[in-house]
């Protein structure tokens, strides 16, 4: 248990593996929203993100015995969700329209917020036209606020490779956003 008295991820994982299936709901509550924003930006809508998180949670339960570091359940779950998001991109290869994008953008009220909402949607549309790898590094760095070395550790790649991917993303976004 941590200082708040809540069971650690490791102890919950071990309890589930020992047969206490209902304990898995602790992990569901703990992580259901943790990576929802990542998934929403990767897939272009909150509905798609919800489906991805749901599937990733069930997959995490099914393969829980392969979680070699139970205390790092969060990192392990993120990788399952990431895989799910990439698989979804490969499956559908759609151009997400305005409707999907608007679900990610903030609801608008005033005129200035309306204007900002349009700018936000423009960027969202452009992000959806990047490769999944380019979009992921953009989302992790600029939406989730991770540093390059943190992303590299999480994705098991190098900072140099990430920067190259990101810089290509910047150029591609410029093409898309400045196109007449």
């Amino acid at each position, binding site marked *: 248990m941590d200082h708040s008295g809540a069971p650690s991820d490791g102890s919950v994982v071990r309890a589930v*593996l020992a047969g206490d*299936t209902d304990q*898995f*709901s602790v992990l*569901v*509550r703990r992580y*259901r*929203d943790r990576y*929802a*924003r990542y998934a*929403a930006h990767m897939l272009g809508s*909150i509905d798609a*993100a*919800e489906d991805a*998180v*749901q599937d990733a*949670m*069930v997959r995490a*339960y*099914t*393969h*829980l*015995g*392969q979680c*070699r*570091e139970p205390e790092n359940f969060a990192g*392990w779950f993120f*990788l*399952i969700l*990431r*895989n799910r998001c*990439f698989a979804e991109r490969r499956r559908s290869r759609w151009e997400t329209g305005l409707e999907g994008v608007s679900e*990610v953008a*903030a609801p608008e009220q005033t005129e200035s917020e309306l204007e*900002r909402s349009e*700018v*936000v949607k*423009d*960027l*969202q549309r452009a992000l959806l036209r990047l490769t999944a790898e380019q979009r992921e590094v953009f989302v992790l760095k*600029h*939406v989730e606020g991770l540093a*390059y070395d943190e992303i*590299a*550790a999480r994705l*098991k*790649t*190098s900072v*140099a*490779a990430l*920067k190259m991917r*990101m*810089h290509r993303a*910047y*150029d591609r*976004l*410029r*093409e898309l*956003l*400045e196109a007449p």
Partner: protein
Amino acid sequence: MKREWNPLVKQVLDGERELETLPADLRLEAETARRLLLDAIDRQAVTLSASLDARVMARVRSRATAPWSRAWRWLSAPTVPRWAVMVPIAAAAGILLLARTSTPPAIGEPRTALTGQRESVYVRFELYAPHASRVALAGTFNRWDPAATPLVRVGSDGMWTVTIALPSGQHQYGFMVDGRNWVPDPVAPAVDDGFGRRNSVVSVNTMNGRIL
């Protein structure tokens, strides 16, 4: 025509350079880049619907009672009794690895050593990569840090090697070639890492210095 941001502007976007340090003729470009790419980012938190938990748990409970699912989780759970089943399987799959990686460092036999409080075995990792300029070992034992354990080129035939002490247990790893290419060990068993890549597996038993 394709228009690329100036490399210095990209450094500003990366947060590695202050806009004020740019030459005057680049500041407008940097301000435009910031406005288009960074100021427009929606960082609002996303909260999924309240019914998600119940839907997940319904599927989980359904799987928990399925015989195939129970058998799979029993086999894959990393607890001591299960190793009684898994070790012979791993042994059968890892004979090639034993023949190669049990070659000891310098003295001819696998050596055991104390690393902290845990007994360890020296394991030599090798990769044939004649065109690589650098090779590193990354795995569960070094937090997947591709900078932590570089391999050394041996001679001129393209072989790279490193020897490290590993504690008893199963370790996943791979080679990072030239800082960007992930290469699983071609002579070791491998597992899916859950997101599209293969990781090699080595099992270390410190009781008799064996490596599977």
